[in-house]
């Protein structure tokens, strides 16, 4: 049997790193439908899984892929799919089912230029709101945004951990710029990895209620075939998992599903800061755009401008409180994202009345550092 | 061994009438009763004609007919 964790340092692309991240995290099932710029993840998985005993299947479409991923998750496997915007758009109904039935799974979106077919081979950050609001009904999701090949690996592992911990689908929001970028990747030794597995029932089958949660709000999860004989449905359901259309059950269920994420916002949130301690201009960015922002902030400091960078590593749940605090002493906040105005709305909501300046960017490339520097300079002037 | 007999679980019956229509031995008849759910269940009029063939238990869409130990003789 081949090595599962390919410890060592290599020069690879982001999609490759993502696939290896999934394998390191213990992913046992991967289903997808080819789509640029995510296909290379499937190609790597297809190469590796048969040797490791993981189940890879290429589906007839993205709807089938995500549905089968949820089926595999209920069968006890860690499961993942990867796609880009058009594929996510098709998956949303069933991602909603994963939220409702609390099926841990990872959805990788290697974003490309939209709307619609748009710019299939080119990067963008236009699907950031979609993964939070694309499903009908009230949901909360978790989304992570890598900025490098190394993070494609690291955050894929983390995405699995969060999905298992909270029994919820987790998005990895990458983009073509990172998915197709070649950089150095270091895979740790297997024993250095921290892996999380879903909480299993401790009660005997006769007493197990598949949707009863303790104060963590996350119910323990049995797998099909384990002898618990439970029923799961996308209908509003009680703790037994049975359909129940009462107002009370709906209220309790939806609140729990959302609150299990909302209440843990602080725990889930990951950010990185650069010279924010005394900054007058706070730049907020994520993913590939954050790399431009980092250069811009360093250049600003070289020019004596007090800029700082808050890089959001997790995008959802949105860390309102943290933003508010970070912006407290700044004169203004700059948001740079590769779209025409998405996460900036969340930032505005969090930091207002602090002025927020938005730097949109459309078409393949992230902002140049110069563009962001110029914005910093204007505020400082 | 105890004798068996056909038995109606009235709470489950929805009054479709299949048992009345399809029992080969004409064991059931329509009753006058209306249950709380607004349903008219069958009445077992000829229990002795029942051959315990099991057709009605299988054709009943509501699991309302079962063959059980006849407790009276049990």
């Amino acid at each position, binding site marked *: 049997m081949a090595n599962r964790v390919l410890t060592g340092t290599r*020069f690879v692309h982001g999609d490759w790193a993502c696939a290896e991240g999934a394998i390191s995290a213990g992913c046992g099932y991967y289903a997808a439908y080819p789509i640029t710029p995510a296909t290379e993840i499937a190609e790597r998985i297809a190469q590796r899984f048969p040797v490791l005993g993981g189940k890879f299947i290429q589906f007839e479409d993205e709807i089938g892929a995500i549905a089968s991923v949820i089926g595999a998750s209920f069968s006890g496997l860690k499961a993942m799919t990867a796609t880009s915007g058009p594929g996510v758009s098709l998956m949303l109904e069933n991602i909603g089912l994963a939220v409702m039935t609390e099926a841990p799974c990872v959805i990788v979106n290697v974003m490309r230029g939209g709307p619609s077919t748009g710019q299939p081979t080119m990067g963008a950050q236009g699907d950031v709101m979609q993964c939070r609001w694309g499903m009908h009904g009230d949901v909360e999701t978790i989304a992570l945004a890598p900025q490098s090949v190394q993070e494609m690996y690291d955050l894929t592992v983390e995405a699995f951990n969060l999905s298992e911990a909270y029994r919820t689908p987790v998005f990895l929001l990458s983009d073509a710029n990172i998915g197709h970028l070649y950089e150095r990747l270091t895979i740790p030794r297997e024993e250095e990895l921290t892996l999380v597995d879903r909480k299993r029932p401790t009660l005997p089958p006769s007493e197990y209620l598949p949707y009863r949660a303790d104060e963590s709000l996350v119910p323990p999860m049995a797998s099909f075939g384990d002898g618990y004989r439970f029923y799961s449905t996308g209908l509003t359901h009680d703790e037994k998992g049975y359909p129940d259309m009462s107002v009370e059950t709906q209220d309790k269920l939806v609140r729990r599903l959302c609150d299990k994420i909302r209440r843990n916002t602080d725990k889930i949130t990951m950010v990185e800061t650069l010279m924010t301690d005394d900054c007058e201009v706070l730049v907020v960015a994520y993913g590939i755009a954050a*790399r431009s922002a980092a250069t811009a902030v360093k250049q600003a400091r070289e020019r004596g401008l007090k800029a700082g960078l808050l890089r959001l590593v997790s995008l959802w749940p949105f860390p309102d409180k943290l933003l508010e605090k970070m912006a407290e002493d700044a004169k203004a906040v700059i948001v740079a994202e590769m779209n025409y105005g998405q996460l900036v709305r969340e930032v505005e909501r969090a930091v207002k009345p602090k002025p927020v300046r938005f730097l949109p960017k459309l078409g393949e490339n992230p902002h140049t550092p110069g563009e962001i520097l110029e914005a910093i300079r204007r505020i400082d002037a | 061994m105890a004798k068996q007999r056909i038995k109606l679980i009235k709470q489950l019956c929805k009054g479709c009438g299949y048992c009345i229509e399809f029992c080969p031995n004409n064991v059931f008849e329509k009753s006058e009763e209306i249950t709380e759910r607004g349903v008219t269940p069958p009445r077992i009029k000829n229990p002795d004609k029942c051959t315990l063939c099991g057709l009605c238990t299988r054709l009943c869409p509501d699991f309302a007919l079962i063959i059980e130990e006849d407790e009276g003789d049990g």
Partner: protein
Amino acid sequence: MTRREIRIAGFGGQGVITAGYVLANAAAIHDGQYALMTQSYGPEARGGSCKTDVITSDKPIDYPKISSPDCLVAMSIDAFATFASTVMDRGIVIYEASLVDISKNDMDPNKNYHEIPAVATANELGNPLTANMVMLGAVQALTGVVKAEALAASISDRFPKRKELNLKALRRGMELGRLQA
């Protein structure tokens, strides 16, 4: 030596992307540098134009895109026409002798031009597919962006089976480059 930006451009089938990979991998894995590589294609399904951008640095690389390369390797007239003007002042343009036919008039006095007969050399070596490695040799000799040993090691990574031939092409390219330096 901080950030260096190298662009290699040509058309599909010339091994442009492979050259980029070998160069960046050499820097990142065998030369103690930071390095990254990106690639892009023309509108064609396959074939058609393509290019790869390599950035190396002794510090972590934030911004991953190239606007004005320090060095352009042009493997087609199209690549030369599109990108030569983007090369920064005092930068160098290396072009394939048989595929890029330019007159002195096309040359910008602020840049250095080097003609390398990569295809011919590769043909001499018996495999036209090694022209890309000849070019890489020239790049090494003319820019020093990575150490020669690092490039050689990278070639072993990339061509475990056809290592010798490609190493030979690399060395020939270095010689050709040195002649021009």
